């Protein structure tokens, strides 16, 4: 039921991708695993970095939400600081997701989160604290990590 929809979304995203985002299948034979490259937005400490974002669609898509994780290490309150790089987005919770929500919107939301983290909804409490109380230091570390991990 979902394959036509997925194909359409993939085509749209490939033809006219949102700013700073490129999309491809991780493996040509599997439309459920996507590789997304996200450019760090200007004005954020992630600027000039290129981040690999893994997008995974459940078989029930679009009735169940996709899941998003960072394949590139990133210093961010909303991304887990481990080898999973999981990201917690409100719109990706099963009870908030709507079948008519689009992957493009998810990706744009994720990229916007790089400009404006949501420290009150954080998965890394320590980074969230720092973001709120010591922005300069947060910027510095985020920039350093971007240099170290997100610039080839």
């Amino acid at each position, binding site marked *: 039921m979902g394959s036509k*929809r997925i194909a359409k979304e993939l085509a749209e995203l490939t033809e006219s991708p949102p700013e700073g985002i490129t999309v491809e299948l991780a493996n040509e034979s599997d439309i459920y695993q996507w590789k997304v490259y996200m450019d760090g937005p200007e004005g954020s400490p992630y600027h000039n970095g290129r981040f690999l974002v893994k997008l995974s669609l459940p078989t029930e898509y*679009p009735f169940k939400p996709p899941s998003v994780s960072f394949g590139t290490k990133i210093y961010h309150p909303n991304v887990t600081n481990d080898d999973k790089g999981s990201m917690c987005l409100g719109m990706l919770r099963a009870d908030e997701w709507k*079948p008519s929500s689009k992957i493009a919107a998810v990706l744009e939301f994720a990229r916007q989160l790089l400009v404006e983290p949501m420290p009150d909804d954080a998965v890394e409490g320590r980074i969230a604290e720092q973001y709120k109380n010591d922005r300069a230091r947060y910027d510095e570390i985020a920039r350093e990590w971007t240099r170290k991990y997100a610039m080839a």
Partner: protein
Amino acid sequence: MESDDDFMSVASSGDDFLDTQASDDESLGEDFGDDFDGGFSKDKDIVATSRKPYEVEFKVLSPDDIDRDQNQQINEVSSILSLPPESSAILLRYGRWNREKLIEGYMDHPEETLEEAGLGTNFEGTPKTEVIPGFVCDICCEDGDNLETYAMRCGHRFCVDCYRHYLAQKIRGEGEAARIECPGDGCNMIVDSKSLSLLVTPALKDRYYTLLQRTYVDDKENLKWCPAPNCEYAVDCSVKQRDLRRIVPTVQCNCKHHFCFGCTLNDHQPAPCQLVKMWLKKCEDDSETANWISANTKECPRCHSTIEKNGGCNHMTCRKCKHEFCWMCMGLWSEHGTSWYNCNRYEEKSGSEARTAQAKSRASLERYLHYYNRYANHEQSAKLDKDLYLKTEKKMTSLQSQSGLSWIEVQFLDTASQALQQCRQTLKWTYAFAYYLARNNLTEIFEDNQKDLELAVENLSEMFEKPVPELANLKVDILDKTAYCNKRRVILLSDTAENLKNGEWSFNVEW
């Protein structure tokens, strides 16, 4: 009912708590009294029928009763606000069935209220599916010529297959019913029962209504589901959370299950919910094990293995590291010279503080164990009673054939077995209650009542286990003892409930 009210006004003269309750009762419906008496009918011939201080009024509702109540409220609101019933239902669920507040809010700000409830303001037309030329479903991207589609009043149109799939996933997958939103991105319009009926299978519709019923009972403070497995009844009782400091509201479902309306645990009279919670946590906690360890064991001064001294002299040899030391002073055994079996260094030790700590811990442990052992004993006996109850039926059958008694004539065994179970349940909780009770001039009466009930229960229990041929001859005796047990229980519970209600107990914990 009248006799109940008379009893109440005598028993509670000058007390505002029960007066409030009595007035609440009137709003609960006219067949209240019947159900209530029905619940306690087995006590009827033994004790007086009027309500005891430890009893509360309640009413048992079947799924049909719940539906009827729900629909009645929906229809009332529907006619007051001139809205379709399916919209009033959404409005009521949004307002958690607080009708007065809801109507007031609607009268003040109709449009905002409808918007927030997920209704929208347009109520024209009946829902129907349509085929629309050139339509592409935003969910599955299908665009077939004969694609059936549906949209609620919000106008977000999707193909019927996707709509169905979405609803099925919400209802079956997520157990959601009261607040299923339109599948449209960012639209908060709630799917109403009419739209739902149009789209889903009858089985799914049943499930939807079951879930709605569940949220109805969950939303209302005066309703609770009977917690017994597979029981589908709910109980209506006006005791509020804030009343639970002064009352232990045990109710009995039509399925015979006794439970506390306050916390839905098994009947735990006379102990109030909060103390029950503390007690259960305490019994569950490892803290008491730790307490035991600290009171009964010491650590090897060298390798820190935990050692329990289980008799013998003070000369300890650690099994693990072979360290030799004195149990009394924990010092090296080799320094004890020739006073082998009497440590004379203990008295001169400056560790009096450590010794007091150990004594204190031991005393508090012993106190706990005193109550816990009795609590656990009754719990264990109650479990045995359950086996006994099953055997009772066999006993009754064999008694009928051996003594020529009729079925009715052997019912006394059933009555006795039920009384035993109930009394043990009460006794069990008196020990948890007593653990938290601070001594005052009333505790002695309580302990006497407890002792009397315990004695009566043990007497009956013993008699009950006699071989079958003797049972027929003991009938009068057993009936007597059963009645006595029940009477002692009523006395104990009445006394504790009265004192709880009047704030006469003092406790050794904050709750």
